């Protein structure tokens, strides 16, 4: 939905902060993609060759949504994410190195190697988890927001999900619940136009995500999700309403998934012109224009350096002990057979 872009009325520091987050996400995911080559058994590769095993869902091209929303959250705010969650995790303040360690399956990863990319979480910054099931984060976010209400805490919850999630039942259930109870919850539909390998539009009736939200009684806005300043500014005003007690709000951010559904998916099912147009509208390039090339380049180089360190740390980190496969399951009945 690229239209007239307004630029950014805020400070250069904020522009830099937004770009820094985007650059870190891009650098992280590029490196993770490289490390995942040969990592998916279904594509005939030897898993032994890859540092990152299994499906790796990249948010490349969608970084502006994570950056623009999360800059408006505080550490005490909570966040739920999706299988495509590296960007949200970094933007919420989690350590890049510990996330890379988790992708490498190492004991020093956030989840001790038990979760991997699809279950990344860092509770120390309020990141309650990516999720391997589409729309599954919505009820969890609703419950977390309800808990904040019950506990009398001032924080809010940001709930990220994709355009595919609007066709699952928990979308209806969760939005209805949040509206009925006026919960402190920002729903973020990060609309990358593709549900795995199917164009979402071809499978979605009616006027789409925001119209559905409004029909349920959750107000919101549609935003150019590749314009990080627009995402920031709209998130800011929606979150202000939530903090003022106006109940849940909905941000429908329209963006594009540069890569395939998983890192090894070449996405040849997409129209070449559509992809080419999308690549020209790279959200990082737009942010760089506003920041100035030399400042941007310094930030990008710092992000690359951070990733190099994260990769080195992850490669050198210890594997989890096999015995840890038997911990963190349940306290009661810890017998395996």
């Amino acid at each position, binding site marked *: 939905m690229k239209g007239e872009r307004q630029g950014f009325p805020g400070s250069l520091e904020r522009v830099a902060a937004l770009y820094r987050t985007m650059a870190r996400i891009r650098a992280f995911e590029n490196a993770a993609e490289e490390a995942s080559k040969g990592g998916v058994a279904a594509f005939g590769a030897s898993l032994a060759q890859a540092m990152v095993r299994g499906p790796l869902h990249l948010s490349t091209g969608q970084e502006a949504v994570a950056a623009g929303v999360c800059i408006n959250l505080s550490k005490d705010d909570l966040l739920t994410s999706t299988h495509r969650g590296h960007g949200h995790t970094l933007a919420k303040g989690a350590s890049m190195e510990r996330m890379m360690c988790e992708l490498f399956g190492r004991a020093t990863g956030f*989840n001790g190697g*038990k*979760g991997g990319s699809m279950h990344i979480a860092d*509770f120390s910054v309020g990141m309650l988890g990516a999720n391997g099931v589409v729309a599954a984060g919505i*009820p*969890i976010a609703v419950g977390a*927001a*309800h808990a904040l209400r019950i506990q009398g805490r001032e924080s809010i919850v940001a709930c990220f999900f994709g355009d595919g999630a609007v066709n699952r039942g928990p979308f209806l259930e*969760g939005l209805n619940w949040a509206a009925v109870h006026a919960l402190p919850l920002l729903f973020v539909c990060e609309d990358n136009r593709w549900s795995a390998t199917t164009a979402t539009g071809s499978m979605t009736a009616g006027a789409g995500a925001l119209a559905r939200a409004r029909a349920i009684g959750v107000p919101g806005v549609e935003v150019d999700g590749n314009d990080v300043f627009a995402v920031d500014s709209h998130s800011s005003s929606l979150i202000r309403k939530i903090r003022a007690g106006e109940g849940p709000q909905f941000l429908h951010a329209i963006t594009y998934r540069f890569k395939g559904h998983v890192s090894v998916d070449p996405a040849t099912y997409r129209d070449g012109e559509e992809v080419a147009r999308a690549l020209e509208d790279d959200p990082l390039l737009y942010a760089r224009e506003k920041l100035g090339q030399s400042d941007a380049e310094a930030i990008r180089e710092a992000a690359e350096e951070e990733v190099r360190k994260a990769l080195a740390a992850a490669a050198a980190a210890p594997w989890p002990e096999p015995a840890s496969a038997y911990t963190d399951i349940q306290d009661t009945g810890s017998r395996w057979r």
Partner: protein
Amino acid sequence: MALTTYAAAACEALRAAMHADTRVVVLGEDVGRGGIFQQYKGLQQEFGAVRVLDTPISESTIMGAAVGMALAGLKPVVEMRVVDFALCAMDEVVNQAAKARYMLGGQARVPLVARMPGGLWSGSAAQHSQSLEAWFAHVPGLVVMAPATPQDNYSLLGAAIACGDPVIYLEHKELWGLQGELDQGVKAPVGKARTARNGSDITLVTWSRTLHEALKAADEAGASVEVIDLRTLWPWDRDTVLASAARTGRLLVVHEAVQAAGFGAEIAAAVAEELGIRVKRLGAPRIPVGYAKPLEDEARVTADRILSAINEFAGRAK
């Protein structure tokens, strides 16, 4: 000691837990009115609509929200109305509640109790009459409990809330009105069976409503039958079962669930592996529960059927 019902006993246990710990909250359909079986009677009046939360008919989100509440520091008690409806929330039970702690590398726990009244409910047909305990016992991360008496519905519900793990709590739809003695001082640890009747010829392991049928059958049997109420299905009390079975030399497992791939198969196999003794199972035939009484009766594991199984088993050589 006072006489109380199975429903009221659970209500008392929940009331005590809510008084003891402000993190305990209740959510589900109709809980404000006391729940459809009155197992929440008076709780919303006592604790308010914030801690006893009425919800839409949204099973996925009731269970998923409970997971979110737990991750954010609460101890939710979830009402699923009947286990058959909890099937609408299986992603949230199996993929979220049961797995979260492990997948997150222990960063958080999911201390929740999901009450899912199970079992055959007269005249209610196939979507309101299932016994699905084996499904849940199969899933790592879950505790599974099935109280058979008012005393246990008090003591076990308290233990379930206290244990800190996700618990599938299977009350029986036909036991709500059952009366019995209640001593609020009695504890029932998770994972500990109760020997309901002593005997020397056959060990009969059962749980939930079928306990009462089994006790009737044992009273009429020629053989001396030891009846063990398992109470917790995962973790199940191997020590008690194995000790009894080693003594009697015969194990009969009886449950209301469909026999094929029922939890009785697990117990029978484990005992056979461990002791090499004769084992036998009795469960329902693998048919949906029919509406008409003659059809419904085919699915019932009655005292008569249990007695036949005991007599047949006792007649066989060890």
